[in-house]
Every structure is written in C-alpha cells, then in structure tokens.
C-alpha cells in the first residue's frame, strides 16, 4: 500500500516520457494483450513491457559513439569522424490513448508498437486508422469517452504480420494412455502508432496543476 501511495504522489507524465529512452534496450517485449501476459508480472515489468525497442539502432549507436569519443581524445581524426552523441530524439507529443482493437483494449503511445490479433486484409506498410478510442490523455487534460471519444482517431502503420511464440498444448489423462501434444502459434499483427488526432473538441477534464 505504501508503494501505491508513493506512485500516486510522485507519478506524473514527464517521468514516463523520459523513461521511454532508458527502456529502449529492454528485454524482448511481452505485450499487454491477454493471451501473452507475463504471469503475475509486477508493476515495473508491465511498465517496461510496454516500452518497445522501437528505434533500437539509435540507442545502440549512441553508446559506442560516446565510448569512442572518450577513449580517443588525443586522436582528433577519430573525433571528427565519430559524431557527437545524437541529440535527444524529436520531441514526442506527450499523449496517450486507450484504443480497442479486436475486443481488447490497449494503452497506446505514439512511436511505439503493439501486437494485436491478426488483422485480415492488412498488408505491410498499410496506414490504419483506429477509431474506437475510449480515452485520450494529455499532459494537462483527459478526454473520457462515453463510450467512445467522438471524432478521435489513432493513426498507425502495419509493420509485420507474424505469429506469436509457440505454446505447447499438452493433453494428458492418467492411467488411460491418452496423450496429445500439439503446438500452436497464434497469428498476430504488429502495428506502430504514429499519431493521435481528433480529440480536441470533446469534453475534457482539465487539470489545474
């Protein structure tokens, strides 16, 4: 309970936005979706699971460039060749939305990806608009939909149509010599969220802080 009160008092939007940079190189992402939820994953794990390693090349580039700059100080050539650690990523709008896809709800941030059920008829690099948006939150106000925020749309791009990791479905009845072993991979689609629009006119709950 102490941790719950701590979280209540100390969390605000900016820490989540800056945390996104640190968590870029986190472990392979487990999605928020029902079927793939890490069993009893604690609060911190769900936080990192949502952070996708989206611009992974950028984060790996920044680390070796920093090391090289430090170690090759006398060598001016190397300094000129190696670029400065890249500046902060282009400012993301600090906004999130709760979107419903395939009867599951996801909390969605621009620039990150999510895994959803396989969307039939969507090819790679298709632009998708998700219009069942249940809640939009910005830094200062929250737009709560009853049930949907009117005219809100979440734009996304289909990245990949793949399969979930295999689960072994093993059925066994004791003393009856019955054993069935089946592997199953559920098809999924990875979509990357590009932006959230259209919520400005809806009734909002605004903070005074």
């Amino acid at each position, binding site marked *: *309970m*102490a941790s*719950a*009160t*701590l*979280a*209540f*008092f100390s*969390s*605000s*939007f900016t820490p*989540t936005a800056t945390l996104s940079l640190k968590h870029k190189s986190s472990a392979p992402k487990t999605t*928020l979706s*029902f079927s793939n*939820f890490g*069993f*009893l994953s604690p*609060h911190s794990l*769900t*936080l990192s699971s949502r952070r996708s390693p989206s611009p992974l090349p950028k984060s790996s580039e920044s680390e070796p460039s920093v090391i090289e700059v430090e170690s090759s100080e006398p060598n001016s050539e190397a300094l000129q060749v190696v670029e400065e650690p890249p500046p902060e990523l282009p400012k993301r709008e600090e906004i*999130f939305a*709760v979107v*419903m896809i395939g009867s599951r*709800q996801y*909390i969605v941030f621009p620039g990150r990806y999510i895994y959803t059920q396989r969307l039939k008829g969507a090819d790679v690099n298709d632009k998708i608009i998700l219009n069942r948006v*249940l*809640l939009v*939150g910005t830094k200062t106000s*929250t737009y*709560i*939909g*009853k*049930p949907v925020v009117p005219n809100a749309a979440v734009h996304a791009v289909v990245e990949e149509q793949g399969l979930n990791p295999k*689960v*072994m*479905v*093993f*059925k*066994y009845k004791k003393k009856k010599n019955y*054993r069935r*072993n089946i592997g199953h991979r559920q098809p999924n689609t990875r979509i990357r969220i590009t932006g959230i629009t259209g919520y400005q006119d809806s009734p909002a*709950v605004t*903070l005074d*802080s």
Partner: protein
Amino acid sequence: MNKDKIFKLAKGFRGRAKNCIRIARERVEKALQYSYRDRRTKKRDMRSLWIERINAGSRLHGVNYNNFMHGLMKENIQLNRKVLSELSMHEPYSFKALVDISQNAFPGNKKAVLPPRKEGISVVL
C-alpha cells in the same frame, strides 16, 4: 530427438529431473499439464489482480471498487479492468477524473472514509 526436446524443456528442474530421462519425462509432462491448466487460471488471476489494484486506487479517493464500477457502468464508460488498473498506477490524474465521474453518477457509499493523509517520512513507512 525426443530426448533432446525433453531435456530442453526440463531446464531448471530440481535434482535428477533435469538429467535423467525417465524422471525428466514425467516431470516435463507434468509441467506441460500445469501450463495448460494455468493458461486458463492466469486469466482469472490477472483479473483479480486488476480488481485489487482498482480497489486500492479508488479507495485513495474515498470510493470503493463496488461503487466505482457501478458509477462507470452507469456512465457507459467501457474501459476494462486491465486498463483501469494501469491508469490507477501510472496516470493518477486521469484516474481521479474517472473517480469523480463515477461519484457524480452514483454517489453510493456516503460513509466512505479517506485514508489519513501521510506527511513527510510517513509516506514511505
């Protein structure tokens, strides 16, 4: 081939169950049965975890889970428990807005008592 698969699945098991095929085979079969059963119970456990968290989060604002959900249903807000629990943890202002909406829709428990406000070091204790 089958033996290799069994040993791969038996990683981390205790004692001879990770090394000896006769014991490993039994233990792996049991493990697979448990995982089949637990994929179903996981859904139940997760839902009860989310309900606990929503309960805790809304009680900070003086509303218990019961009345909170009733108020949301009355207002036709269709956020599910998973999302509500995430909001209660990470987006406290949005969650407070939801609690206010729910209280307006369904005042409910008038005798609800807010927990005493903790100041200073007692926040951590």
